[in-house]
């Protein structure tokens, strides 16, 4: 009798069925859920607080060097971040404009509340998407360790065919301000304390990372006359390729620049013993690229001042973000420290700076599709994967979401390689090299960065977004037309000769360029540093009017032709190795001649291709040669496996499931 009662009570717990469960509604979770729902998957997204959807708990901006590239790539693939910031920004700047086009990067200050609210609205209006406020505490798998659902703290069970974990900094989160420690997520929100245990029970290796954020200060308490004003660009360039540039020309809000000084540093040094990091209370690994102010003062002791940017958090708030001064020093020290800065003498802190520790995974457990190697159907993205930054999170969420859908639809995974996108570089770095600290994108990580520009993200990726099903036919057709116009114009310009006539010499003189001795080609003149495609229009009478974005591409491709060619050649070589696929769940002991270290590393990582194998630290070129020879042997020893591999099956959704 008693048993029967128990069964009844279990049945009474809530059970629902979806195609995809997305855990977390930050920048990764939102992209993942939107991608799945837009691809027709019945999707549910969980968050511990509906009010924190797409929240920006740290800096109030989107983009920046290399991160701006990521946002554009997300946009070209059909993601939401670019569109969202174009409608909610309050200042915008193209960084590095004086440098080469590869490192131009867009950065916009966001109205945080607006950003979050518009994203929430987009989620709410998306078909096939359900939003649920609940803490997910368990993942549920079948006897073959495939994902079958997730459970919430309340005991509710949500069946699904795939799940995407985007838990950000919430897992067993702990915030520290000096001696004060609270077990909360960012901004004092509720932490998620149960899921880690379930993941550990499923054999997932966890890391503990740390990051931090500076104080927010009341605008009314700041004396801006002592600071340098930082304006936005006169002409704003939108992030999204779908945004009409006219729509983003609007009044902008300024940021402000001030500096720390010897007094600031002295206060910090005198109180280092009360910093949880230096007192040894913090166990997580923090990012070196985003050091707290106490770190900067200690590690760069010879610098007598550090730049501090004061940035508005929105239009309808008084809070100002103190960029460059994140800290985990105690509250009273923070009060003294911030007030040493010119303009902040009477500053009132609205929110204290704090450091936050959280659980994340060793991302080497993932395939480049962002699916767990050991748990088919489970995907993950964002800070949970050991990255840092809104943009890094968004792009992983998008890829994880798309691939969860591709798995269910039994279609090819979307895997971008290092020569195709910053997203490819980021994911490859995470899943191949692993990381010992929160991973941030940098242009120097992209070896083919001259090809992976923010200005050509649409040309690189729209086709892939279209094939996946997130980009409309109309948008794809336009990119094809654009590419055709660019090629045609380059071909024409390469044939245009310029004589050393008076008109030409006058133009040369106008731009301080050396006059011509003899006739030359127009493309040669475009390559001169002081000239470009647009400036030479007067001496190019055959030129037809072209859209600005076409002219820009023509200019870049002609101007940097030599360098671009070199990188294209390198990419060809790179692609050859990427195309050589390796077997999965393979024991590398079977290959005689590999060094022991290589066998261990290869067995652990199970690389998808020779290319990926070659990037594992501890695998030498000689090892790669040995694997190549082995692959060739397979042709005779196990032709079925050989031809299956070369048929690219390792990247096909659902393939591993059928095995």
């Amino acid at each position, binding site marked *: 009798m008693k048993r029967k009662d128990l069964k009844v009570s279990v049945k009474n717990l809530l059970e629902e069925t979806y195609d995809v469960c997305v855990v977390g509604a930050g920048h990764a979770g939102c992209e993942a859920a939107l991608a799945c729902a837009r691809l027709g998957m019945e999707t549910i997204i969980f968050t511990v607080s509906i009010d924190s959807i797409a929240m920006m708990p740290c800096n109030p901006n989107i983009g920046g*060097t290399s991160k701006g590239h990521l946002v554009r790539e997300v946009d070209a693939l059909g993601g939401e971040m670019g569109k969202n910031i174009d409608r909610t920004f309050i200042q915008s700047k193209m960084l590095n404009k*004086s*440098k080469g086009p590869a490192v131009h990067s867009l950065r916009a200050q966001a109205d945080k509340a607006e950003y979050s609210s518009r994203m929430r609205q987009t989620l709410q209006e998306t078909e096939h998407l359900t939003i649920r406020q609940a803490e997910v505490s368990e993942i549920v798998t079948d006897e073959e360790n495939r994902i079958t659902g997730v459970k919430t703290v309340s005991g509710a069970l949500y069946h699904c065919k795939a799940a995407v974990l985007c838990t950000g900094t919430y897992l067993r989160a702990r915030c520290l301000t000096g001696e004060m420690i609270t077990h909360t997520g960012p901004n004092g929100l509720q932490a998620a304390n149960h899921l880690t245990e379930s993941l550990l029970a499923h054999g997932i290796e966890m890391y503990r990372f740390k990051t931090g954020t500076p104080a927010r200060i009341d605008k009314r308490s700041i004396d801006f006359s002592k600071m340098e004003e930082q304006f936005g660009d006169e002409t704003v360039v939108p992030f999204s390729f779908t945004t009409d540039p006219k729509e983003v020309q609007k009044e902008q809000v300024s940021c402000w620049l001030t500096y720390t000084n010897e007094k600031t540093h002295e206060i910090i040094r005198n109180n280092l013993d009360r910093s949880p990091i230096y007192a040894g209370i913090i166990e997580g690994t923090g990012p070196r*690229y985003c050091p707290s102010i106490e770190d900067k003062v200690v590690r760069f002791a010879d610098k007598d001042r*550090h730049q501090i940017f004061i940035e508005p958090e929105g239009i309808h708030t008084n809070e100002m973000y103190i960029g460059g001064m994140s800290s985990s020093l105690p509250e009273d020290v923070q009060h003294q420290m911030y007030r040493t800065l010119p303009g902040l003498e009477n500053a009132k802190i609205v929110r204290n700076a704090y450091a936050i520790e959280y659980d994340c995974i060793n991302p080497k457990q993932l395939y480049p599709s962002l699916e767990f190697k050991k748990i088919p159907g489970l995907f993950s993205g964002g800070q949970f994967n050991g990255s840092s930054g809104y943009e890094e999170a968004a792009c992983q969420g998008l890829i994880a979401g798309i691939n969860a859908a591709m798995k269910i639809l039994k279609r090819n995974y979307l895997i971008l390689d290092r020569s195709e996108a910053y997203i490819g570089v980021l994911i490859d770095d995470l899943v191949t090299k692993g990381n010992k600290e929160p991973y941030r994108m*940098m242009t120097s990580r992209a070896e083919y960065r001259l090809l992976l520009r923010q200005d050509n993200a649409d040309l690189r990726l729209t086709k892939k977004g279209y094939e996946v099903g997130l980009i409309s036919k109309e948008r794809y057709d336009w990119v094809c037309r654009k590419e055709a116009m660019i090629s045609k114009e380059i071909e024409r310009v390469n044939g245009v000769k310029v004589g050393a006539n008076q008109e030409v010499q006058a133009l040369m003189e106008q731009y301080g360029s050396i006059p011509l001795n003899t006739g030359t080609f127009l493309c040669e003149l475009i390559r001169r540093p002081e000239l470009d495609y647009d400036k030479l229009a007067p001496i190019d009478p055959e030129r037809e009017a072209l859209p600005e974005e076409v002219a820009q591409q023509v200019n870049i491709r002609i101007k940097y032709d030599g360098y671009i060619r070199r990188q294209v050649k390198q990419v060809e070589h790179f692609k050859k190795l990427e195309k050589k696929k390796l077997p999965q769940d393979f024991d590398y002991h079977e290959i005689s*001649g590999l060094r022991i270290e290589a066998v261990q590393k290869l067995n652990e990582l199970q690389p998808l291709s020779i290319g990926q194998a070659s990037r594992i630290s501890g695998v030498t070129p*000689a090892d790669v*040669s040995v694997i190549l020879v082995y692959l060739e042997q397979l042709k005779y020893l196990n032709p079925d496996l050989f031809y299956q591999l070369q048929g690219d099956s390792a990247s096909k959704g659902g393939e591993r499931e059928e095995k």
Partner: protein
Amino acid sequence: MKSDTIAAIATAMTASGIGIVRISGEESFAVIDRIYRSPSGKKLSGEESHTIHYGFIYDGDEPIDEVMVLLMKAPHSYTKEDSVEIDCHGGVYVMKRILETVVKYGARPAEPGEFTKRAFLNGRIDLAQAESVIDLIQAKNEFALKASLNQLKGAASREIKQIREKILYEIAYIESALDDPEHISLDGYGEHLSGIMEETGTEIQKLLDSADNGRMLKEGINTVILGKPNAGKSSLLNLLVGEDRAIVTDIAGTTRDILEEQIQLNGISLNIIDTAGIRNTSDVVEQIGVEKAKEYAKNADLIIYVIDASTPLDENDFAIMDLLQEKQAVVLLNKSDLEEKTTEEEVGKYLYQKILSVSARENTGMEELENTIREMFFQGEILLNDEVYLTNVRHKNSLQEALDSIHLVLQSIQNRMPEDFYSIDLMNAYEVLGAIIGESVEDDLVNEIFQKFCMGK
């Protein structure tokens, strides 16, 4: 990036009658056209496959050698690629010179085992041979890597390290500024970098010059002479070298430091290192010598172990035998002219290596020793000697590429290219220099950026 056409010396690097330099890859014919001159002025790229042509190899206007050139068009060659064989006069210098010329005009030095690897990957070799291909690649690579490090003289290696550090710092500076333009400025940087590049170029040029006159590399098989004190090691060295270099006395423990000599043994070059005798000693100076000897033994390509046959084996001998396990070694029973206390049979119980009876004092058994060493290295799977020479060519090639990259940086500065273009060529220089000292790039740059430059946010 260099083309994927490879070149190597296909015959043993000895003073034999004929030497062969082999080229394989798409640009083989283009390369040979650039360096070959026929009496009739014909170009070889227009000739039939499987024909042989008489003519001369030129480096620019400088004639190198009178040769026969054999042409093989794909797929009818060992590697199934377009291939060219240059039959030249034998002799180490000529072969090296021709290989260097081939590399200068568009090929790159082959990786260890690369011809065989290509032959296999292109389906030229059947499955049965595959296993040995793997072994060959691995063994050759291991040797090449070791050779590459062992041969590089300490000073050259330090110099390259310093140049790399300097280059890395500059890349990190540029990259930090690109990453955080609001904190780090590049105003006037081009001029600053120009000066550093001029300096770096000069330093690399110096290294290149020293590579030419042999000051950078020790060429030869690293050979270590081991034996307990007074076994006759130094006498043996003197015999091989032909001059009284080591101090020979009959007081045990005379050789306290490590002596190094380069000798030619019927065309094989050996770097011979004579060591202090190995025995338990309390003499500090000598102790250092013993430790060093053990260290050298570990890294040696060949060990010559000298046993004093006139005394019985003792604990010192057994300590040395331990060092010999899995090593290429020759065991010499010296003092065969005296009464024999230790026999060949007895030593054979402990060691599997070849044992010879010699007398350094009477100068007997030397010819046999030479023949044995020759056999070990020329009939084995691996022609170690060739790898040694190839390493030299590879190093030179890398230095030249680094120098070219530095010049490209200077050119970019002069052409007022944006700063991010500098780091492309700087990185290339950093990488190729790293290949010489066996260091890869990994996360060097990111680490340098974080370590040296204070990033914002």
